[in-house]
């Protein structure tokens, strides 16, 4: 029992502390590939500390939503972090959760973000929120389908069961479904984390922004919490990807320090590799027009459906 609580604590603290680091890695890697020096990989930490120390300004039209949403979103992502296998093949809340609950918890945090974007009455917030719900409407089926393409072979929606099964049957990887689902999932992750070619996380230009548009009315500690939450969300999406596609190296037991330590190192390495991978994609492509994105997601869905059909026919 004690070691489970310790593991849960480790997992939450790991997410809180590691998320800005992954963000820093991506930004730095992108800058290096574009022949810039780029910010230090620890810059996101400095930004967060600065936000937390500053006073906030709240609109006179805003209701209690603006003050409550940042805490809710920040906490929801931490609750989700207990449901995804990271260091070990099991997750602290794995027994009481599954992929559907995780997806709906993300939807809950998106709900509060998109609703609060309307709170100040600014048209930027409305625009960001309207675009976000458009993308998420197509994103959710795409995400479920790409996950199903893998889960169909295992017959469960429990993430830790899936991770364990894939870990013990490396043969799964050599199947064509795996590659199709992999590409489908990559497209979904790019959209879900708001990266180029779908959204640009570094811009405040109203023509292009989606997620940043919703955060425009936050300041000070509230902005800090929202930024931190979106960084943690990015880490969680990467972890879901890891546990569905390459869970190898996760510790099978929860009470052996050596294998836990190894699991931790491997997990961080995988996250860094994924970060660099997405930085490469961001560098290679230009941002898409907003109404082209549904086509990209539709192609992801078609790939997943193809993968599902191949699995079923076999």
């Amino acid at each position, binding site marked *: 029992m004690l070691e489970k609580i310790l593991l849960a604590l480790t997992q939450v603290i790991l997410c809180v502390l590691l998320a800005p680091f992954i963000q820093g890695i991506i930004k730095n890697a992108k800058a290096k590939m574009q022949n810039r020096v780029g910010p230090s990989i620890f810059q996101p930490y400095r930004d967060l500390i600065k936000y*937390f120390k500053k006073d*906030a*300004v*709240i*609109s*006179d*039209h805003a*209701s209690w*939503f603006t*003050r409550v949403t940042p*805490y*809710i979103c*920040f*906490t*929801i992502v*931490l*609750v989700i972090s*207990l449901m995804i296998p990271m260091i070990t093949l099991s997750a602290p*809340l794995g*027994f*009481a*959760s*599954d992929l*559907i609950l995780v997806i*709906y*918890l993300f*939807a*809950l945090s*998106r*709900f509060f973000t998109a*609703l609060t974007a*309307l*709170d*100040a*009455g*600014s*048209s930027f917030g*409305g625009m960001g*929120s*309207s675009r976000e*719900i*458009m993308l*998420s*409407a*197509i994103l*959710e*089926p795409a995400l*479920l389908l790409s996950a199903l393409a893998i889960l*169909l072979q295992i*017959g469960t*929606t429990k993430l830790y069961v899936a991770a364990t099964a894939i870990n013990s049957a490396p043969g799964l990887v050599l199947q064509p479904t795996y590659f199709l689902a992999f590409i489908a999932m990559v497209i979904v992750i790019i959209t879900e984390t708001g990266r180029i070619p779908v959204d640009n996380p570094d811009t405040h230009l109203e023509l292009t922004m989606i997620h940043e548009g919703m955060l425009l*009315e936050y300041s000070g*500690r*509230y902005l800090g919490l929202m930024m931190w939450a979106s960084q943690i969300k990015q880490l969680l999406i990467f972890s879901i990807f890891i546990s569905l596609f390459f869970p190898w190296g996760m510790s099978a037991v929860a009470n052996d320090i050596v294998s836990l330590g190894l699991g931790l190192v491997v997990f961080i390495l995988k996250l860094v590799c994924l970060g660099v991978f997405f930085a490469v994609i961001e560098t290679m492509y230009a941002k898409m027009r907003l*109404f082209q994105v549904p086509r990209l997601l539709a192609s992801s869905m078609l790939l997943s*459906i193809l993968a*599902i*059909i191949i699995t*079923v*026919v076999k």
Partner: protein
Amino acid sequence: MQTSIFASCLIFFLIGGLATFLSYKSERLAHFFAIFCAFAGSVLGVVSSLGVLLKTSKISLYLWSIVESFPLVLAMDNLSAYFVLVISLIGIAVTIYSIGYVGEYQGRKNIAWLSGLMNIFMLSMIAVVTSTSVFSFLLSWELMSLVSFLLVMYDHEKKEVRSAGYIYVVMTHLGTVFLTLSFLTLFLYTGSLSFSDFTALGSAIPQTTKDIIFVMSIIGFGTKAGILPLHVWLPRAHPAAPSNISALMSAVMLKTAIYGLFRMSFDFLGGGPVWWGVLLIVIGLASAFIGIVLALAENDMKRFLAYSSSENMGLIFVILGTALIFKAEGQIFLGALAVTALLFHVMSHALFKSLLFMSAGSVLYATHTKDINLLGGLIKKMPKTAILFLIGGMSMASLPPLSGFISEWAILQSLLHVSFDLSSAWLKVMGCLAVAILALVGAFALAALIKQFGTAFLAMPRSKLAEEAKEVPLAMQLGMAFVGVFIIVFGFMPQAVLALTSPLSKQYFLTEIKSNMLFYIPFVGGEGISVGIATFAFIVIILIALAAITWYFGKSRYVIDETWNCGTPLNDLMEYNGTSYSHSVMVVFKKIIGLESKVQVKQKYEYYPKQIKANIEVDIGLEDKIYKPMIDLAVTLSQKIKMIQSGNLQSYLAYMVCALIIALLFLE
């Protein structure tokens, strides 16, 4: 004991209805008497149905018989009891709410009529789900349709209310025709009009006849449930009715159709081939998708809710189809899961839809408009209504930790297990695709909720109506809060609902789905989820996070200032309104929904327009493509038949004589 409680429940409704009509001249007194009767009747309904479900005893109440073969018997088995419970639970909330809501009509209309008819409406719904023979079923079904028609027409001075009422009464009778036909076909084969004989002999009917009965009852009950393309009355009638009545109609009257279809397919026909289930799933998915897209496009708060009912009925059809597939495939564990999901969703839809209609009614009460583009900023004027609307809405969008999420989860799991555990490749692929479409529908529901709530309750008021709004009377708040509490409790403790559904899953699939903390699947080692545990984690983490942040960075400080608007003062025209909010989604699906945007520019010089007016219309073209040809056909046929209507008394007498002779010959 049980039987007498149920009898007194019916008597309260009956007295509440009849006495009101006799004494309608002292309006307020009659109104309060009717409300009291409705409240008492609903409470007794809850008590008697709980007695049946928890003790698994049965109630049978013999009323009277006109002739020997037409006895009027109302009885409660587990299935009936579950639906009586849902009806009377919502009944309690709506009667409390009505005490305040009739203020909207006071002085303008006779409020005693409204409350009196509500009693009869409740009585007819309870009679529908407890009927034991075709005779009493159709009688109460027709009573329910007619009373609800009268209630829809309550505000009949308005033209759109009248047209909505007439469309409703035509459509509902179309449904009754098909129901009568399917019951008569059953009568032909079983030689009886009683439901118990249908259950005993129904499975021996030849398969082709069964198919015909099944399809006819889908049309019949589907009309009442507002399933595509028979939903046309729903978005018209529900907004036209007074809000307490729309809450009853949408939350519970539609459920009587689900009850009927369930009874028909599981009890009378004893399940069927796999394609029955597939048919229901396809119809349900189409209904859910089109319903929610139209809901998203809607700027009228009550029409949005009506379309969302169409969507949810679609969901229930999907899960009913899934249960039929599991029955056909002999999967008893998964069948039990699907039946539980079905009943759970019946409960949670009744709860959140009644709450949403009541809170939309509260907005209407306070602002006298349903158009969200005229509202805004209501969260400051009506904070309690806002929170209650939010609870109902979040449950509608199936967000954890509310009861809507639990039922959505169970529905998705049932469909996923079609893919995971059945052997047919077609069914596997269908299961995956159905899950994807439901995910799309869920995301749309979320978007529609943000649009409605964000536009009506947040930011700045868009008209004088919204500026002058005040919080609604306490009775209305209490009625809404009553349902709100159940939505939250059933989310945290699904076992409370599972205790009521387990007798049914046991009756139909021999497996009980029950648990203490987790909602689990009785299959492969019992996988499950627990929203309660997740919420516990949420509370622990948020407390620690708040404490840690305050300790390290100090107390949160903020100043209040204007919203940044690039230097110019912000006004309400600059806000995103309902139409603009959903426009981006509409553009993506414009081919499916027939989106048309017209931009009119009034200008003096070409590049300096004085006024730009943008109008966005959504029309899926069902009415033009399906209804118009049918109406034309009906008109042409009627004109042909008109020939015999000569206006000559002698020829009418001759028709009667002929009819009599034919009838006598037929009897020989």
